[in-house]
């Protein structure tokens, strides 16, 4: 770059000294933090796959009878727990996701600054911080005990998980609705749209990808919860496909009981359950990506 010029050359390089050092230190710290975050994440996944992979087989995933703890790995399987987890979580999502999204829509679009809207908003913030076992105890007290022997059921577990998911869904959906730019709402209002139209055709579609991923994170979180299920679903050894009656079981419960026992077979089954749960969560998030990609194809 030697253009003939009689002007004095200007040094456009980054100035040296303390300012450059600060930049380098900050950059280094960020890379360090990145690695530090990656280590536990990677180790958890590595450990679960390493220990759980050998337990996984078609029989393990589908066999309807959970073997006693003393049995070695080849016997029976966790089909009952897989069915239980899928059913309980799906029904909990069916309760909590629509309610949560409606709640968020109310707070952000309709409630404004009314006391009711503030109350819901505040209570959902508080509920996010409530320990999950409290949700289990709550359902145990208000649902399981009044129903006596028939109280323990997948339904009760669903209620407990729904209580856990509801505030998570409200919070994440609310944040996403806040991000919808106001000029889109105005564009719709200016065409003579009613508030419900604006909400249904502009606000929710604009926020859908965030709402879906927020809801799925809540579902994945709930699917892995043990504490709310401890007092609500019982823990049986055979498949119970009826969500509404009779005790059932779930993967986190099986991890809990198998991991506590001293037998090798049980321990391996616990790792297998853990891996199954992670894979279920992974599939959920993968599906979410595909679904939201379809919804948001016009946003870019």
């Amino acid at each position, binding site marked *: 770059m030697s253009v003939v010029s009689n002007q004095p050359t200007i040094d456009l390089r980054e100035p040296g000294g303390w300012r450059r050092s600060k930049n380098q230190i900050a950059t280094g710290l960020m890379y360090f933090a990145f690695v530090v975050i990656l280590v536990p994440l990677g180790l958890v996944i590595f450990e679960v796959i390493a220990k759980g992979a050998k337990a996984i087989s078609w029989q393990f995933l589908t066999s309807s009878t959970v073997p006693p703890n003393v049995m070695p790995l080849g016997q029976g399987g966790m089909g009952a727990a897989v069915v239980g987890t899928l059913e309980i979580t799906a029904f909990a999502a069916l309760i909590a996701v629509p309610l949560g999204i409606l709640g968020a829509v109310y707070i952000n679009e309709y409630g404004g600054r009314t006391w009711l809207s503030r109350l819901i908003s505040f209570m959902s913030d508080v509920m996010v911080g409530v320990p999950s076992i409290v949700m289990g105890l709550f359902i145990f007290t208000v649902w399981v005990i009044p129903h006596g022997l028939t109280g323990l059921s997948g339904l009760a577990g669903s209620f407990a998980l729904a209580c856990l998911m509801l505030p998570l869904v409200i919070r994440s959906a609310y944040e996403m609705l806040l991000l919808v*730019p106001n000029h889109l709402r105005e*564009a*719709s209002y200016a*065409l*003579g*749209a009613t508030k419900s139209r604006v909400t249904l055709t502009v606000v929710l579609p*604009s926020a859908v990808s965030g709402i879906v991923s927020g809801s799925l994170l809540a579902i994945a979180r709930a699917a892995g919860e043990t504490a709310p299920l401890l007092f609500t679903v019982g823990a049986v050894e055979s498949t119970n496909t009826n969500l509404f009656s009779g005790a059932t079981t779930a993967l986190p419960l099986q991890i809990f009981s198998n991991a506590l026992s001293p037998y090798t077979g049980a321990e391996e089954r616990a790792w297998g359950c853990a891996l199954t749960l992670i894979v279920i969560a992974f599939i959920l998030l993968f599906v979410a990506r595909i679904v939201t990609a379809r919804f948001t194809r016009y*946003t*870019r």
Partner: protein
Amino acid sequence: MEQPEQKIKLTLPETSTAAAAKQDGGFTGASVFDAKNVSCYYGSFRAVTDVSLTIYENEITAFIGPSGCGKTTVLRTLNRMNDLVVGAHIEGDIYYRGASLYDRSVSPTAVRRRIGMVFQKPNPFPKSIYDNVAYGPRINGIRSKGKLDEIVERSLRQAALWDEVKNRLNKSALGMSGGQQQRLCIARTLSVEPDVILMDEPCSALDPIATGKIEDLMHEIKSRYTIVIVTHNMQQATRVSDRTAFYSVLRDDKSDTRTGVLVEYGRTQQVFEDPHDARTQAYVTGRVG
């Protein structure tokens, strides 16, 4: 020169909106808006004081004035857009073709179906070009594909955009240039065949060529619509408008408040060439503002 007007009901449900409005006022010179001593408030803050003006049919009326003088606020009261702002309210009366706009029985939704709005920043929905234009007809209950196709094509042609986008109607509207987006927003407004179009600085984010296209477009659609435009660009006001309203800011040093006032309103030529008020004179000649 005012013609007797028929009262129009502004209550829902009513679907054939603009068509009805046009039939009873097909003559030029009819007044569309009559504002009488209107003051606009945001909470207890009075943004605009005591505006009275009449806006006439099939004309382009420009609102000019320095920033903060309340011209956008007045514009947004004309289709009750300011209802959406918490705490905003007005005093005084605005009549739209003889009907009181702020009457308790009036539905803001019905008002906005007749009185469309184009905003300062192009704000297409994150949907396809087609769906953007079809949005208005759809919320008015038109479902037939053939009818929608027809409306989309007509609106895009009116907005001088059809030839540029006819081969990519299913592409995202956000992939268009700023000028195209703004013309799409105009097409979207035209799709519901409003009676009046309010434009809030529609060209402030556009280059001169895109601005020229939109100004040509305004001239073309003027025969069918009544247009009110807020602009910072005085050349634009002289180019496009028939009448001009000049607003200014009134400062009260004692209470340290400021409020917008309507200084002068008249034929554009008169306002720019022979202003009656010294403040207008100073502004249009570029000495102030």
